[in-house]
């Protein structure tokens, strides 16, 4: 599967919390311009993989290559400067700060001009008009869906090439979840943004993604295009019909 054009390549990645090994040698590639879905049950290690790419927890073995550069040992706060952005699990917006400040926080850590920031802000508003309406409100007063939009918008403010999304549909009404997925698709098609999306909502995620990986107990067990994976009987049994997520 490894291709020389991979934007992000993960080889044999291992990570653990104390004695508990959460990642047991993960291999994964994301090519520029792709949406890649990572699906799996609770505790499979999906979020850990995403966090490890960001350097917290540190990888115990293996390698993470971004644009061909080894970032396995790069400090967490510097990874964001490489134009990788993350929208963490559970949204984690800043509740007492206004929507404006939340978005500004996304831009603060990166060096960009005022004009660039303004352009990005307008782009975020085009994608999520609700955020413009709520601009002066405190983040904590937003609804769950709006908070998710804010979390993604905040990540976009750093003008990333690669966006890591952890469970963007968690706890959202189906209609709102659809809006979020539509926005991700738009970002990918119009802005050429590369996306790694971690989801329990396998149906949605695989329909959205170009390619998908299935993770079980810290290992990638299946890989293929989104459409292929959707047809696999074991996927249907484990994540679609059995779980009834979608």
């Amino acid at each position, binding site marked *: 599967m490894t291709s020389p054009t991979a934007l992000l390549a993960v080889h044999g990645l291992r990570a653990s919390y104390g004695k508990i090994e959460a990642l047991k040698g993960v291999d994964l590639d994301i090519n520029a311009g792709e949406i890649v879905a990572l699906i799996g049950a609770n505790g499979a290690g999906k979020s850990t993989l995403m966090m490890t790419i960001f350097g917290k927890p540190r990888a115990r073995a293996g390698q993470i290559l971004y644009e061909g550069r080894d970032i396995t040992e790069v400090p967490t706060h510097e990874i964001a400067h490489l134009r990788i952005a*993350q929208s*963490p699990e559970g949204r984690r917006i800043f509740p007492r*700060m206004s929507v404006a*400040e939340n978005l500004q926080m996304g831009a603060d*850590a990166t060096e960009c001009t005022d004009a660039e920031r303004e352009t990005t802000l307008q782009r975020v508003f085009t994608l999520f008009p609700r955020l413009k*309406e709520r601009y*002066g409100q405190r983040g904590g007063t937003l609804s769950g869906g709006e908070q998710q939009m804010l979390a993604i918008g*905040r990540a976009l403010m750093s003008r990333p090439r690669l966006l890591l999304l952890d469970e963007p549909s968690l706890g959202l009404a189906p209609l709102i979840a659809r809006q979020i997925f539509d926005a991700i698709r738009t970002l990918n098609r119009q802005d050429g943004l590369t996306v790694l999306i971690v989801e329990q909502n396998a149906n949605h995620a695989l329909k959205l993604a170009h390619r998908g990986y299935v993770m079980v107990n810290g290992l990638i067990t299946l890989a293929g295009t989104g459409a292929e994976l959707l047809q696999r009987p074991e996927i249907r049994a484990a994540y679609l019909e059995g779980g009834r997520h979608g």
Partner: protein
Amino acid sequence: MKTPSINTAKTASGIPALLKTACVNALIALVLFSLMVGVRTEAGSDGQLTYWTRFGDVASLVAAVFGGSIVLELLKQWIGPTGAEKLVPPAVQSGMSFLGRYLAPALLIFTLLVPVIFYDQRYILDLAILVLTYVMLGWGLNVVVGLAGLLDLGYVAFYAVGAYSYALLATNFGWSFWICLPLAGVLAAFWGVLLGFPVLRLRGDYLAIVTLAFGEIIRLVIINWQDLTGGPNGVSSIPRPSFFGIPLDNSDNGLAARLGIEYSPTHRIVFLFYLILALALLTNWVTIRLRRLPIGRAWEALREDEVACRALGINTTTTKLTAFATGAMFGGFAGAFFATRQGFISPESFTFQESALVLAIVVLGGMGSQLGVALSALAMIGGFELFRSLESYRMLVFGMAMVLIMIWRPRGLIGHRAPTVYLTKAHAISSDLVKEGHG
């Protein structure tokens, strides 16, 4: 016009509940006081047990509790916690927002005029200086606790470092106050970073314990390092500050003599007053400026969510250390001022009680609110003096006042936080802001 009627309706429907609460409280008081107060026992002249009853006192206590809980409940319904703003009639609300807009400038103008108005009243001037010292300490600690959300119970350590830095540099090397002041700030900031490093991974309760210990360590080192600090005897005859080189005394080249006016000891007090006012305003100004910069926003974001901060590429290590260092620096300035004002310092001035007092000022004022901290410093330090006539009941009244404030204003006197980022076209969002109650 609708709101007051809703309000009365709510109070009316609440009367049975109100009486029930009051009865329950009175009953608890009855059970407690009937033995604690009602029966008094003492050893008689032959060693036998004598007792007598004081049921009259019990009855009055229970009645006080009954009445008190009704008043408390009513006040609670009127003022309500910060979430229940809609209970307040619109007239009061607009009055409050008017007050909110002009309170800070009015307070500042009044403060500037204090030495003019109370020129002959030395006691009030001294008290004002004390209040301003605590305003400054509160604003300094506000950076650490209010903005960065790092619970610091050992803030007095930096106050002590600042005070001893000035005292020792001035007495040993004869350096002037204006050279020592920045040095005291730098040294305190250095100790802030030193404390910051080991506690980088800690949050909340754990951080509080370590900072508490740090405050005690500094105090114990000062007590035991006798050669340098004089131990429990402290440092005495610390030089008074000069007006940029011109001493404020009764000598021939003193300020009074140079200006050709009659010398008065009040000159020095007034000078000290304006000095601490300037230092406090500097603290305030720097904090307000920093809040609008990325570093200030990062402090607040750190208080809200550390994981999200890291995901956004914020270096949490430097963010925490700068918060500690900035807060400590202002504590150091305040300490240097304290030393020059007192002329004598000893470890007794830097006990945990001071840390607790400053922290209480910040929490009561509303974490992160500059005006709130200033008001609560005024209430805590000024109010404490106000109750001096109550003698031994002073602490009791004081404690009750603190409990009441926390019941009615759980987020502090001023719990509202002003945002620091606006759209370029401010008018485009004005209606949203009003809807949210920010107008």
